[in-house]
Each structure stands twice: as structure tokens, then as C-alpha cells.
């Protein structure tokens, strides 16, 4: 009974994909279900149309840059927050979490005026800065959690064995925490790649991200290329999830076998 319910919920969640994926192979000139016939024409359109490729490229650049800057900010923040006690720590924690608590639309409006004042709207840099602010909380939480589980005796041991603090970080701390860093950076990347509301307000035409382009396209012409992009994004996420799941499974198996 529980299994049946779980299956029903799963089906409900993935149901949209059963509509979007077939539509991406459709011959219809607009979004239409069920598709009248099937072909790969819209895939060709996506991969040849600069109006689609440019936002894709923008999104990748913006997401990668946001992830890097986010990591550069939250790495020292996580070490400080987890390992030291200092005056105003609770306040710093609140500031780090604030972007998560504020509604997206409020932030979007704020960024629109704030970045506009600095002439940064409609630029990559503007979008990147906004996305960094938005991805800090979740990335910080992920990294801080893995740092909390880190055994500091490993660092003591490294130093005791003759490693300077810098060598200790790069030879011991970072390699041991690598999964935490990867997941944290991955969250920052996905958050930026996925972010729509703020991008709508500030990305303009030149720095338009993929979600913004999709939104515009749905509003203007309901171009079936949207279904193509959705399918590609879905496959990407699906593959990523499978890879992570397999890796976890292997690790667990290894743990069981050594008993």
C-alpha cells in the first residue's frame, strides 16, 4: 500500500516530463500535445540558432563564475564560523542566511535599482554578483556541515608530521573535504543556472540567461525549442543524479564489504 502510494507520488512528479519530452520531438509549429508527428528539427534549431545558443553560453559562464566567487567567499566564512568564536558571530550568521529568507521578487527589485545605479544591469557582472549573493546561504550551509564533521586531529597530525599550515590545507584538509567542496560548488552552479526571477529583472538582452530566454519565448511565440531545452536540461540533471547515486552506492558497497 505504502509502495503504491510512493509510486503514485513519483509518477505525479515525473508526469510533466512525459509531456515535455515527446513535445521536443514534435513537428508542430507551436507547443502542442499530443504531437502530430515526430522529427528532430527543433533540436537542429536549438543547436544552430544563436538566439538560443547565446543565452545557453551566458548561463554557463554566469553559473561558473558565480560558483567560483561564491566558493571564494564562503570557504573562509565557513572555516571562521565553524572553528572560531568571535564577537557578532550570530549577526554574521544572520547576514549569511538573509538572502535565503527574503522573497526573490523583493530581492530582484532591490538588485534592479541597486545594480542599475552602478550601471551593472544588463551585464554579466551584474547577474553574477546577484547570483553570488543568492547562492551564498545554501553553499555555505553545505560546506559548513561537512566542515563540522571534519576531525581536526587530522590537521594536528599533519602539522605534527612537519606540514606547514598551507601544506596542511592542500594535502589534508582540502582532499578530505573535497566531496563537501564539490557539492557546495555544484549547488552554487545549479542555483545560478536555475535562477529566473532576478535574471528576468536585471539580465536584459546581452546577458540574458537560459531561463530568461525560455520565459520570453513562452510569452512571445511558444517556440517548441523550449521543450528541447527542457529535455536537454532534464537529461543533464538525470545523468548527474545517476552518476552521484552510483558513486554513493559503490562507496557504500565498499564499506559493507570491508565490514
Amino acid at each position, binding site marked *: 500500500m505504502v509502495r503504491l502510494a510512493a509510486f503514485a507520488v513519483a509518477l505525479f512528479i515525473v508526469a510533466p516530463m512525459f509531456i515535455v519530452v515527446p513535445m521536443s520531438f514534435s513537428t508542430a509549429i507551436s507547443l502542442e500535445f499530443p504531437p502530430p508527428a515526430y522529427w528532430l528539427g527543433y533540436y537542429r534549431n536549438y543547436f544552430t540558432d544563436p538566439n538560443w545558443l547565446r543565452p545557453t553560453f551566458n548561463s554557463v559562464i554566469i553559473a561558473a563564475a558565480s560558483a567560483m566567487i561564491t566558493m571564494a567567499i564562503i570557504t573562509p566564512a565557513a572555516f571562521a564560523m565553524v572553528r572560531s568564536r568571535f564577537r557578532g558571530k550570530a549577526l554574521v550568521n544572520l547576514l549569511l542566511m538573509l538572502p535565503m529568507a527574503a522573497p526573490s521578487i523583493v530581492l530582484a527589485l532591490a538588485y534592479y535599482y541597486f545594480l542599475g545605479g552602478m550601471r551593472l544591469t544588463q551585464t554579466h557582472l551584474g547577474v553574477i554578483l546577484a547570483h553570488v549573493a543568492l547562492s551564498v546561504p545554501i553553499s555555505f550551509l553545505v560546506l559548513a556541515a561537512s566542515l563540522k564533521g571534519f*576531525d581536526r586531529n587530522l590537521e*594536528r*597530525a599533519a*602539522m605534527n*608530521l*612537519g*606540514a606547514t599550515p598551507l601544506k596542511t590545507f592542500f594535502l589534508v584538509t582540502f*582532499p578530505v573535504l573535497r566531496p563537501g567542496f564539490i557539492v557546495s560548488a555544484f549547488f552554487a552552479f545549479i542555483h545560478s543556472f536555475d535562477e529566473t526571477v532576478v535574471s528576468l529583472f536585471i539580465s536584459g538582452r546581452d546577458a540574458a540567461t537560459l531561463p530568461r530566454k525560455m520565459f520570453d519565448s513562452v510569452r512571445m511565440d511558444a517556440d517548441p525549442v523550449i521543450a528541447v531545452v527542457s529535455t536537454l536540461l532534464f537529461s543533464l540533471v538525470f545523468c548527474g543524479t545517476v552518476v552521484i547515486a552510483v558513486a554513493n552506492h559503490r562507496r557504500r558497497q565498499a*564499506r559493507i564489504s*570491508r565490514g
Partner: protein
Amino acid sequence: MSNPHLSLIDLVKSYDGRTNAVDGVSLDVRKGEFLTFLGPSGSGKTTTLMMIAGFESPTSGRILLNGRDIAPVPPFDRNIGMVFQNYALFPHMSAADNIAFPLKMRKLARAEIARRVDEALALVNLDNFGAKLPREMSGGQQQRVALARAIVFEPDVLLLDEPLGALDKNLREHMQMEIKRIHRETGMTMIYVTHDQTEAMTMSDRVAVFNKGVIEQIAPPLDVYARPVSRFVGAFIGDNNFFSGRCEKAGLFAADGLGPIKVAAGEQPGGNLVLLVRPEAVRLLGEGAPATDNAFTMTVDGVVHYGDSVLIMGTANGVPVRLRPSSVAAAHVREGESYRIGWDAANGHLVHA
């Protein structure tokens, strides 16, 4: 001890500025000595060790290694090895890479590193385990790797922070012998922290008994056992009977409740004292047994069987008494019955109350 290898001088550590975790510790360690820091948790023994390793800086006091003050020397330049309670092996490196780590930090030649790693693996009897990751090894094997890693760079002093605490009893006893063997074979100066008095007794050249941030006594294990300087040391190491009272003249102790008890003439009279008598020194006096200097009648309240020996708890004149005869000698003892017990004057030891 004309030329101590490692000296601690009036070492004090306070974390909060009010109470001292370590409250004036001074001691000298000889080259090649096996010294144990023994004490309950919170007694300051691990904090002292952390200051020697350089992970904590002393609030005041000095640490001299070969006559040189090492206060300004950061931990990575101290050349002091350390074995951690949870091993602290690098999980992403094989056993051999773990052991090679300190040698790589010292920029030794590759061939020299390989040779010394092999030697170290052989020393801890792990010849064929070099390629294994820590998580593929048992607790005992991991501890051997940690040991090999800590001695492979030939540190001036090896610190061991409760290294066997996570192992089960049989493995622990085996590793105790292994550590002693390595101590013999390398001649390394070792400081061993433990709260296990048996470990301290069996392994050490000398034991430093820590309590509340100070060393109460530092002496060879048998001296600490036979002549504890305080009630705390007498209670922490081995089991003991405590009889409070006064000593008006040499050789005679007036115990509260029990009355006069003969003690060795060398014991110092004066003030409020506690007489310590080891339970194994108290004998059951059956018919025909040789008389003892002191004898009382005791009612048995409880008997605990250990297999080889028996712990008998009872009261004599309202004073609790414990004795630990062999199970053969105590086969007839029943709860609620009364027996004659006694001990010789030489087995009593007086400390200040």
C-alpha cells in the same frame, strides 16, 4: 639526571583566565625514558601533552627540549612525534603514503623514503599492508600505521595520547607489548598519556600521576603503588582501604573506630592522617594461620568473584574494610558471616588526610 632531554618548568595553561587546566607542572624526562601521564579526565595530562606538541601555547612556564626553549617553535618544526587516540590517519592516503608523509615534508630523496617506509612497516609487523587505505584496515592495524608514521622520521620525543583507548581488551594488551617492544628497539623517548592504571603500571619507567592540573607524584610504578604520597594517588592506582585517624607515636596509629593499629616505625607521626592498606595485603585468618601484627573481626557484607580472586567487602567495628584473597583461600566465605582478618604493620602506609 644531570642532562634532562625534555624539561617542563612551571607550566601553566588557562583557557578562561580564571581556572588553570594545568596549574604549575614541572618535570624532567630522560633520553630514552618511557614516562606515563596518568590521571582522570580533566586532570591536565592531555593539555600538558598538547603544549609539548605545540598545539596549545602555555599561559606561563617553559618547555625545554635538549636545553632549548621551544615556545617560539611552531608544531611543524618541533620534530616531536604524536600518536592520536583516534589514529588521525589521512583517510585519502594508503598506509605507505601516510607513513611517507613526514618524510616528504622533510624533502627526503624518493629512494630513502621508500626504504624507511618499508622499515617502518616491518617494525610494526604490517609488511604487506602498504597499499591499503585506512578504512580497509582494522582498528589495531590502523593504530600500528599511526605508530609507524609517528616514529619513521625519528622524532626527539614520541607523544602517545591514549593510543589504545578505542581497542578491545585483548588487542589492547597485545598493543601494549608491541609499543614496549618498539620502545626497546628504537630507544625513543616516549610520553604516554592514559587514564588506565594497569597500562601505566605495566609499561612505564616512571609514572606521573596528574590530578586537578598538578602532578601529585612522579616515580617508578612500583613506588607509586607501594608508597603513594596522597590519598588521591592511593585511590587512583589500585584498590585501597582508607582508615582515618592520628599517629601519636612512631609505629602506632589510632584509627577512628578500629582503635590502635601497628604501622612500620618509619611512618611519620603528626596531624590528621589516613592509613592505606592494600586489599590484597589483608588476610583471612583461619585456624593455624600465622598471626598478623593487626587483627580484627569483620562481618561480610558482600562478595564479588573475579575467578582468580575474590573481593570481600565487610565492616569491622563499623569501619568498611575490603580484602582481596585468592578464590581458593576464600572458598568458604559467606555473606553475613564473621571472620578474623588481619595484616602486618609493614603493609600499612600513612598519608596526610
